[in-house]
């Protein structure tokens, strides 16, 4: 830490580095106290949650401040680690701080004795993971970025392999690491293009380069490939539904909530900040990929029968929506319409924040359910709202927000995104104008379907009758878990009710990226969210909620005074069939059946129908990801065939080996002769 001034004169960046160092110390302490379970669970994790809160505060205060730069002595000799804190990174730091506070608190209560790897080791991996995420966001040169980028993948790989006794988890970990590394190789080549042969890898130099449109497009496509592999965009998403359910729930919450956003941060940093040229078809490409991913993700999340896979696919869907937002903003800024670009960018960034909060809340709730019942498939859950109210109500907030329903954050993001789509009619090329209805329709469909998924998720797990006897004595979340979930739920509600304040935070970021912002339009009316002008569109969540609450209270008072009859408890209406049991409720597969029927070509289904003579008739349908059979297995087969061909090279006979060197000698002599 060269030239470390006195702590009081530290800039935001120094404080952030202090938080990072503190986390690493937490990790090391965890390893030192490997077996002392109590100390790690109730001691380390809560403290790291406080540090996360500190980071949140720092990020908020640094939001408006100008960019700060620092250089760390570690790194290659001519290329020490450059760090830079600008509004884009402080925005993402805000997301990291907020979410990791809740998740760390939840993790404190999550660990039970004697499960998988010792909690001390997990504590180390977790804190390395957090530290590397923060450093990725502030890294300012290619080498530092790549080092912390893959350290993030590396440490999260070990988190995924926490209980590596189960073979499926090992396979999931392998697939995760493989796609992460291939993505990183793509990024390496992208930075190779960006440094434009100057040998200087700092981002400042990359910004100064003026690449030819061809090289800029090569860099952009490589960046989308590299970051897309990590964000789970369509062709490279297969690892996400395997890896996230495999990790322990608090960490899959962090991976889903934050790590996918860091990949999107990467796309933003390269396409908006490092590349000066902007070409219109980049936006269209990003939008196409985003839309395909979101449609694919949401359709698959409706038919899942395992709760964490359902959430993983829904993360894919949300990442797709964000990418569509960024693509639209890129399209607008390519045509110089900065105001509309700012609107689309704000919509996407709003979606980033709200998704971070509600998705980690949902993953934490699955974690609590998994711990209480030891059951992860939806077919054996149900009626948990009675035994686990502290888990049910926050996850209701999370589910409603994920479904994009009005009073919560998810709706505001969707509202802004749909508004931004209304302005594409101003685009010069007529083909792009045709884009409006198709994309807007798809987004509306995706939003509606995510509503469908969330009803299935919440209804099947928490409502109805418990489908398994052992569920009746499932204990509620302990106090740490409650704190973590409440913090995330409050985050969702705040994001829903105070959009103006949040857009105020997002404004410096949009000014940095597309040099325009919504702040002055939004600031004009404090309680009303007016993106462009009052008569165009406006939405005020506070009044909206007030309206609903007022009607709620009106009805309640009206009924209370008018109504004289009491209430009586009785068994539910069974329409004359007394032997109804919990198994007769609608199962998860049942709930997904209409979607499977409508989107039939998208799936790859194996159906096992019982024959009429079975005494134990069993109906089972397994839905597979078609991309496994269109993309991943063919690639593996090609590699297998190539290696078998090359394997023939080494076939044991010494005469053949001598022949190789002989032929090489002749060939080289021929080459050299000319």
């Amino acid at each position: 830490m060269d030239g470390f001034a006195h702590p009081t004169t530290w800039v935001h960046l120094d404080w952030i580095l202090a938080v990072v160092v503190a986390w690493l110390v937490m990790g090391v302490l965890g390893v030192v106290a490997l077996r002392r379970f109590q100390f790690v669970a109730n001691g380390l994790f809560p403290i790291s949650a406080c540090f996360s809160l500190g980071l949140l505060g720092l990020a908020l205060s640094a939001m408006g401040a100008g960019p700060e730069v620092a250089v760390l002595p570690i790194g290659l000799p001519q290329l020490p680690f450059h760090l830079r804190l600008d509004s884009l990174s402080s925005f993402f730091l805000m997301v990291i701080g907020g979410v990791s506070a809740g998740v760390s608190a939840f993790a404190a209560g999550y660990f039970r004795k004697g499960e998988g790897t010792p909690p001390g080791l997990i504590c180390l991996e977790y804190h390395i993971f957090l530290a590397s995420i923060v450093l990725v966001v502030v890294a300012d040169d290619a080498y530092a970025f790549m080092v912390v980028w893959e350290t993030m993948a590396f440490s999260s790989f070990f988190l995924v392999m926490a209980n590596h006794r189960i073979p499926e988890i090992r396979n999931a970990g392998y697939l995760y690491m493989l796609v992460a590394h291939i993505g990183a190789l793509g990024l390496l080549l992208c930075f190779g293009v960006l440094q434009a042969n100057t040998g200087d890898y700092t981002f400042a130099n990359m910004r100064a380069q003026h690449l030819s449109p061809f090289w800029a497009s090569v860099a952009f496509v490589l960046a989308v490939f590299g970051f897309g592999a990590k964000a789970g965009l369509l062709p490279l998403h297969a690892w996400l539904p395997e890896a996230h359910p495999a990790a322990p729930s608090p960490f899959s919450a962090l991976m889903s909530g934050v790590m996918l956003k860091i990949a999107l941060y990467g796309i933003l940093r390269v396409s908006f900040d490092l590349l000066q040229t902007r070409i219109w078809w980049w936006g269209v490409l990003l939008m196409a990929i985003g839309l395909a991913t979101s449609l694919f993700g949401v359709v698959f999340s409706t038919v899942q029968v395992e709760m964490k896979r359902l959430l993983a696919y829904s993360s894919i869907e949300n990442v797709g929506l964000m990418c569509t937002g960024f693509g639209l903003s890129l399209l607008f800024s390519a045509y110089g319409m900065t105001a509309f670009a700012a609107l689309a960018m704000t919509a996407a960034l709003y979606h980033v924040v709200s998704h971070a909060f509600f998705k980690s809340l949902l993953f934490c709730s699955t974690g609590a359910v998994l711990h209480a019942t030891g059951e992860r498939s939806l077919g054996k859950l149900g009626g948990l709202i009675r035994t686990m109210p502290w888990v049910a109500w926050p996850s209701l907030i999370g589910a409603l927000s994920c479904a994009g329903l009005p009073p919560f954050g998810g709706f505001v993001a969707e509202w802004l995104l749909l508004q931004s789509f209304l302005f594409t009619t101003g685009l010069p090329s007529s083909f792009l104008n045709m884009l409006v209805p198709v994309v807007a329709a798809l987004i509306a469909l995706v939003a509606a379907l995510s509503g469908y998924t969330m009803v299935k998720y919440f209804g099947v797990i928490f409502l109805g009758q418990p489908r398994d006897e052992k569920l009746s004595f499932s204990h509620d979340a302990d106090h740490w878990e409650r704190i973590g979930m409440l913090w995330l739920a409050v985050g969702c509600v705040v994001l829903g009710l105070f959009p103006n304040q949040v857009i105020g935070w997002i404004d410096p970021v949009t000014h940095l990226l597309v040099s325009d912002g919504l702040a002055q339009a939004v600031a004009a009316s404090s309680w009303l969210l007016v993106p462009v002008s009052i008569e165009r569109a406006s939405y005020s969540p506070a009044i909206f909620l007030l309206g609903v609450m007022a009607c709620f209270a009106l009805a309640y008072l009206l009924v209370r005074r008018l109504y004289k009859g009491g209430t009586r408890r009785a068994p539910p209406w069974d329409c004359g069939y007394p032997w109804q049991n919990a198994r007769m409720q609608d199962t998860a597969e049942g709930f997904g059946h209409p979607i499977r029927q409508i989107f039939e070509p998208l799936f790859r289904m194996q159906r096992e129908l019982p024959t009429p003579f079975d005494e134990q008739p069993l109906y089972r349908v397994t839905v597979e990801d078609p991309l496994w059979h269109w993309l991943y297995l063919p690639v593996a087969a090609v590699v297998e065939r190539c290696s078998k061909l090359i394997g023939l090279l080494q076939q044991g006979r010494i005469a053949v080996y001598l022949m190789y060197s002989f032929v090489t000698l002749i060939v080289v002599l021929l080459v050299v002769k000319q």
Partner: protein
Amino acid sequence: MIKFVPQLINLFATLILMLSFAMISQRRIVSLINLFTMQGAALVAASVLLGYATHQPDLYVSAGLTLALKVVLIPWLLHRVIRRLNVRWDVETLINIPTTMLVGIALVIFSFSLALPISRLSSSIAGGSLGIALACVLLSFMMMITRSKAVPQVIGFLSMENGLIFAATTVTNGMPMIVEFGIALDVLVGVLILGVFMFQIREKFDSLDIHNLEALKED
């Protein structure tokens, strides 16, 4: 006498080339070893002549060394090995002799065309023999490839060493002493090790056929 020496050296060079050609087409191991000894003798003669022509005493030392090794010690060793392991039957080749001959001729043409531009520039009197030395090296290389028994492969390897030593002496009038000595030592130790190996292979596989040395491969 001095003016005859370049022709004599070229004569010995062609003799060495002819011998390595003969070794390729040889079927019986014992005559193979004799041909190798003759090649060694031709090499000694060439270096002695060269030493005499360029008045360099250390060429005589290297000739003596080659004589001791390549003409006396190694053939005796090989004969002993053959008697001990009673490996007398003839040499099995992977591709039949005529085709090896054709390939050999092609190799000689190739090495000549390669060495021609260089030998014109060479200052030493036996510049032309570079092409012949290269041809010897390639021919013995090809012999090692086409032989399926351990002993002929070793002889191929040693005749390649002959070719190299010949190139060293004729093209550059001999290398510094320390290097010559080092090369000779390496060759000697190499042969000793090969002998030890042959005993072990013989005892492990009770045959010297290279075919049973093919277990390590990619299935």
